[in-house]
């Protein structure tokens, strides 16, 4: 079950905490994986850790050119893209009253617009092949909101709406489009939280622990697999029960 043998994956945000775990997981299931991010050294570290079947594909997703070049480079390296995992994302937190236009735009550009552009760019070949998977990493915050994250919440909610619309357009070509919405996941970012902050967080998480990057990569593996062929337009919430939607 859940084999990805012979498949090719383009993964963005591969230099990040969650991305690294997704990269290893898809490779373990047999897929060849293109690793994208802006930090070349970090990508190379993931690639050398994985070994054969991983390709370093640096790109800045904040521009249309960055997206187009990435798709061309990935198609070249992998021979085609069967599975796209849009995992790159960033935050520029501030209360709305002080949020700068620039910080609104950057978050929308990278989290939402690049996700759309990459999806659009891979669609034609997926539709032609009559097989494809697009998996977009959203966030619990896209559903529940979070003070200080109007830009981020909008981008992550936008990803969900976009995915549902896109899913309807391509469903009869056996291309599925789904989201994974993580709750609080332990990464370098959340490790910076103090123990009292973590304790407070945990009171809202029925499972009694933060999520791990493996919780997220497992959800991606499922949605990428043949077994998930009948699941589309869905958002898989992986949040330890923190929000039951």
């Amino acid at each position, binding site marked *: 079950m859940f084999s990805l043998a012979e498949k090719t994956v383009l993964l963005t945000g591969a230099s990040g905490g969650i991305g690294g775990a997704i990269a290893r997981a898809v490779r373990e299931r047999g897929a060849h994986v293109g690793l994208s991010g802006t930090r070349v050294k970090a990508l190379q570290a993931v690639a050398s850790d994985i070994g054969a079947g991983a390709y370093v594909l640096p790109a800045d997703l904040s521009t249309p050119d960055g997206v187009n070049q990435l798709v061309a480079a990935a198609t070249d390296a992998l021979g085609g893209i069967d599975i796209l995992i849009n995992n790159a994302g960033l935050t520029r937190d501030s209360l709305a009253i002080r949020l700068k236009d620039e910080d609104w735009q950057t978050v929308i550009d990278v989290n939402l617009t690049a996700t759309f552009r990459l999806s659009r760019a891979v669609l*034609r070949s997926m*539709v*032609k092949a009559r097989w494809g998977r697009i998996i977009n990493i959203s966030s619990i915050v896209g559903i529940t909101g979070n003070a200080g994250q109007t830009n981020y919440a909008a981008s992550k909610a936008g990803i969900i709406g976009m995915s549902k619309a896109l899913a309807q*357009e*391509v469903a*009869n*070509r056996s291309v599925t489009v789904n989201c994974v919405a993580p709750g609080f996941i332990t990464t370098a970012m959340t490790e910076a939280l103090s123990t009292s902050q973590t304790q407070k967080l945990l009171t809202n998480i029925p499972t009694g622990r933060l999520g791990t990057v493996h919780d997220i990569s497992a959800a991606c593996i499922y949605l990428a697999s043949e077994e998930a062929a009948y699941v589309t337009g869905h958002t898989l919430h992986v949040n330890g029960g923190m929000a039951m939607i």
Partner: protein
Amino acid sequence: MSDVADRVKKIVIEHLGVDEEKVVESANFIEDLGADSLDTVELVMAFEEEFGCEIPDDAAENISTIKNAIDFIETQQG
């Protein structure tokens, strides 16, 4: 038959996987050739690529038969 007509028909046959004899000039992509809306968009994109022209959305909306496509491309090239 014009060169444009040949090329248009070839694209339609390849893309929709229909028999050559069905691909007559009066054939409607959706009603006669079983295309859906995504197919028609893909066809327009394939025509654009083949003929190196741009087919704006309002023109594309009026391209529903093989003849419509040939006529549009010929006026562009003319």
